[in-house]
């Protein structure tokens, strides 16, 4: 497939061979002796100094492509056709020694999970120094000096002490910097990043991305970035390839692809994420019907044919051509001219759903964990109320106390004496085990990972019947009928009822988990990151489901998420937590209209925006303080860009009303909060 060559502009940067060139790459996994196709002719170039992104749902082959770029194949992986080359050298035919040298000096990789990517039993210094030793011509002591400089380069504040530490003593963000330092040891021509910020907090994510951007300018390395987060790709890359079922279906600059998608799949992906400030009262999210074909499926024509909304007979009989849409933009579709026919999601009836009556209240709840070496105040005087049918979004970095609050509401943790969780104004027992049936029924939870939340040896039917029996007291045939009814409401079909969790996809499993929570008609459902393990299209379906359930049965949600876009879509009000305290509580419109707490401002600015709107990044230095040892005065003053010396570090501000019930815990006045003055950060 050489058609793309003509479409690539010959710019100055294009002189000389590509930093990475993948041509018609086909790969297969050998499963029980049979080759199963995983890449079906992947072609793209990453030019020197360019950042190229690959997006797509999990299982589309993007990580396989990334590893193939350094010729790291799983033990059952085979390259069946095509060519990979870097700087004019053919990787597919390289010998062992040559490949080692290539990896040591010319190409490097940064991985998804930095905690696993470093050796747990070796000190950081030794592991970084090792990368320099592999370059040759470096003595041991020199390599340690170089390692120290490398850590300075990735903006680690105390490199000497970090070198003396073991991986488990560092945070995920810190370890990712260490991994990047190792990757840059050889000043590589090519840097491959495989989901480098997945699993990191949004604030840490944006810091790591800033660092990569900065280092890219400094080193001029070509970058291949794999991410499922479209915002990350948009803010980081020059060009992007959209992958589906082992083939790139659309390619172009990020602006072209994200603003004028020309392939039905790209359009579907983009419609499935809440963009441009979309909320649940505007319209539903688009969820691509069906699922990704399994690896090895025979797809002789268009790979997207089974899920495409504008499919015709031609798509079934003929492989689509590569259609140029512009100088750099092409799509692989028969019907790119009919792209506007891809249906937009349905508008939702705008009904004012929230009723002011409080169902569940959190009144002055504190939670102090007693440990050796002192008390840890994990929650400090939390006051919250849930209206009927309301969604309260709860945001904050890891360690801010979001999950502790959820668990305290559910009675897993007992709040300190003096606080109470109330149900329609009456306090509930603090421990779940001593709560009455009514209290237990009224508040239920949906967890992040449905795999560990569902009993894997039970059928879906048994899981649901058990929940019905436990929560409503009915049994026998009546319980079965109720279980079927609940499953139907979750758009699960009869046939799913007799399957076990492992036979279901991630999205279906999460539906079962939601069905379980809804079995007893709860008043409040606590959703702890319910979609963060799911692909965007599946996430869209789950969010649609949650929103429609809410419209129908007026359930309230406490929706915990690190994805601000998702929170904005679903939440009526937002609570921002920091070191066990609520620092802001306001309606979603108020939060996005401003003024907001400086912490909220930083959180919002950290979100990689898929719409390409430039955001004024406010960096958050360092890690979130430990609740065991909170800073004096305002807990946020150590990282605040609007910090007032002598005030913020002395007195803790009150949560006060900034108009229309917009509560902010800050000393500053409205006007001061409105000023946008990002703190300058050296080097970025």
């Amino acid at each position: 497939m050489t058609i793309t060559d003509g479409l690539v502009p010959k710019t100055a940067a294009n002189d000389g061979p590509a930093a990475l060139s993948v041509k018609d790459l086909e790969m297969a996994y050998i499963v029980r002796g049979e080759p199963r196709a995983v890449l079906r002719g992947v072609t793209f170039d990453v030019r020197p100094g360019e950042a190229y992104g690959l997006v797509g749902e999990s299982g589309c082959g993007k990580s396989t492509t990334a590893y193939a770029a350094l010729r790291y194949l799983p033990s059952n992986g085979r390259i069946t056709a095509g060519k990979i080359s870097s700087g004019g050298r053919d990787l597919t035919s390289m010998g062992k020694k040559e490949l080692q040298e290539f990896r040591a000096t010319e190409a490097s990789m940064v991985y998804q999970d930095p905690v696993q990517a470093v050796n747990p039993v070796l000190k950081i210094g030794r592991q970084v120094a090792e990368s320099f030793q592999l370059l040759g011509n470096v003595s041991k002591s020199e390599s340690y000096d170089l390692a120290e400089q490398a850590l300075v380069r990735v903006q680690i504040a105390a490199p000497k002490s970090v070198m003396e530490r073991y991986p488990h003593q560092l945070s995920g963000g810190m370890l990712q910097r260490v991994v990047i330092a190792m990757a840059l040891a050889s000043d590589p021509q090519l840097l491959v990043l495989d989901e480098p910020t997945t699993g990191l907090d949004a604030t840490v994510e944006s810091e790591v991305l800033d660092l990569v951007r900065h280092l890219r300018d400094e080193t001029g390395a070509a970058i291949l970035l794999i991410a499922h987060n479209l915002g990350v790709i948009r803010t980081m890359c020059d060009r992007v390839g959209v992958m589906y079922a082992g083939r790139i279906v659309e390619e172009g600059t990020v602006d072209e692809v994200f603003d004028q998608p020309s392939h039905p799949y790209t359009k579907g992906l983009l419609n499935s994420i809440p963009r441009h400030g979309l909320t649940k009262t505007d319209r539903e999210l688009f969820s691509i019907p069906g699922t990704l074909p399994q690896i090895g499926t025979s797809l002789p024509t268009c790979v997207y044919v089974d899920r495409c909304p504008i499919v015709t007979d031609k798509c079934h009989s003929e492989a689509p051509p590569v259609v140029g849409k512009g100088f750099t933009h092409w799509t692989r579709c028969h019907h790119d001219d009919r792209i506007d026919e891809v249906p937009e999601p349905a508008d939702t009836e705008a009904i004012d759903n929230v009723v002011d009556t409080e169902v569940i209240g959190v009144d002055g709840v504190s939670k102090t964990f007693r440990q050796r070496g002192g008390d840890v105040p994990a929650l400090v005087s939390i006051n919250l109320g849930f209206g009927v049918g309301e969604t309260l979004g709860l945001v904050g970095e890891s360690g801010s106390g979001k999950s502790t609050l959820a668990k305290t509401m559910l009675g897993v943790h007992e709040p300190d004496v003096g606080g109470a969780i109330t149900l329609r104004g009456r306090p509930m027992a603090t421990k779940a085990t001593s709560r009455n049936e009514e209290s237990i029924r009224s508040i239920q939870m949906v967890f992040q990972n449905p795999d560990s939340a569902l009993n894997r040896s039970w059928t879906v039917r048994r899981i649901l019947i058990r929940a019905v029996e436990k929560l409503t007291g009915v049994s026998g045939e009546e319980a079965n009928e109720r279980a079927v009814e609940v499953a139907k409401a979750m758009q699960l079909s009869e046939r799913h009822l007799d399957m076990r969790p492992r036979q279901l996809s991630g999205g279906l499993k999460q539906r079962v988990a939601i069905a379980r929570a809804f079995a007893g008609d709860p008043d409040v459902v606590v959703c702890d990151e319910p979609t963060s393990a799911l692909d965007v299209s599946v996430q869209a379906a789950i969010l649609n489901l949650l929103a429609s359930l809410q419209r129908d049965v007026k359930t309230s949600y406490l929706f915990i998420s690190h994805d601000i876009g998702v929170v904005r879509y679903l939440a009526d009000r937002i609570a921002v937590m920091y070191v066990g305290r609520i620092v802001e509580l306001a309606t979603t419109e108020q939060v996005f209209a401003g003024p907001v707490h400086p912490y909220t401002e930083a959180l919002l600015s950290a979100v990689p925006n898929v719409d390409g709107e430039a955001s004024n990044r406010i960096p958050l230095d360092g890690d979130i303080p430990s609740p065991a040892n909170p800073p004096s005065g305002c807990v946020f003053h150590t990282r605040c860009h609007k910090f007032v010396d002598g005030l913020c570090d002395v007195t803790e501000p009150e949560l006060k009303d900034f108009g229309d019930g917009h509560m902010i815990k800050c000393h500053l006045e409205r006007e001061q909060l409105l000023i946008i003055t990002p703190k300058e950060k050296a080097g970025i």
Partner: protein
Amino acid sequence: MLKFITTRVLLSFLTLLIILAVVTLIPNVAPGDPARRIAGPTASFERLAAVRESLGLDDSIPEQLATSFTSLFTADFGTTFNDSSVTVSELIRAALWNSSKLVLLSLLLMLPLSILGGVVAAYKKDSLLDRIIVNVGVALSSVPDFVGGVLFLALFAVPFSFFRVTAAAPEGSGIFTQARFLLLPALTVTMVYFGYIARVTRASTISALESDFARTAFMKGMSTRTVFTKHVLRNSLLPTVAVVGTQLGFMFGGLVGLELIFNYPGLGRLILTAVVDADYPILRGGVVTVAIIYMVATLAADLVIAWMNPRARLALTE
């Protein structure tokens, strides 16, 4: 660290007391009368009573326990029933020394062989060599040590005079001669344990080799060999250390069959003889000795693991 060790030692001590109590109480429920055996079948009742009195068999249960517990602190288990001029401590010391020699030689043979076997099998995973190592290991492990011992005797000691049918070298032999005499029983121990330890090593090596940090090392441009020596082994040998630690106690006290076949005066044989002769002081001393070895070995293994694993080590030192 100190706290961890203190807690472990105190707990071990408690376990030891329980074991000792059980061993002490056995004679009260066991059939047979040691006094009758010592005094002979024709002894008078007066004579029997006197023997019983001198052996302390008439003491009340609390008195028996008190005597036992005291002996633990003084490390003095008295004299044997059979011969009042021989102290139990002397017998145990000699047997322990013999067992130590056998265990040491066995470890010297077994550890390098089985670890190497496991690592090679992991490196060549799913190859013919891997299958041979795993399957031969399983086959060998399923042969009881005394059967293996007899087999080795027939195969080696009978045709070659280099190997000896008895494991105990003549008094005053040099270290090499002693090792030569011990070679066959040590090989038998190696045979029994090879499959087990090789399999544990293989499994943990494979998981370390497939880990993300090994992938990082490969991506740094390291050769497979360096990845093994610098990154994989240190992580993959932890489970092996734990297994060897728990098996050490057994090797001291449990190789009864082997010691009998090779006519070797080790701890296992001593304890067996004590059971057969109803010589309770030896039984008590022997069981306590083996229990202590068990505890020391597992504690040592835990400490080695902690030393190899910074997370555990730092948790201990804090």
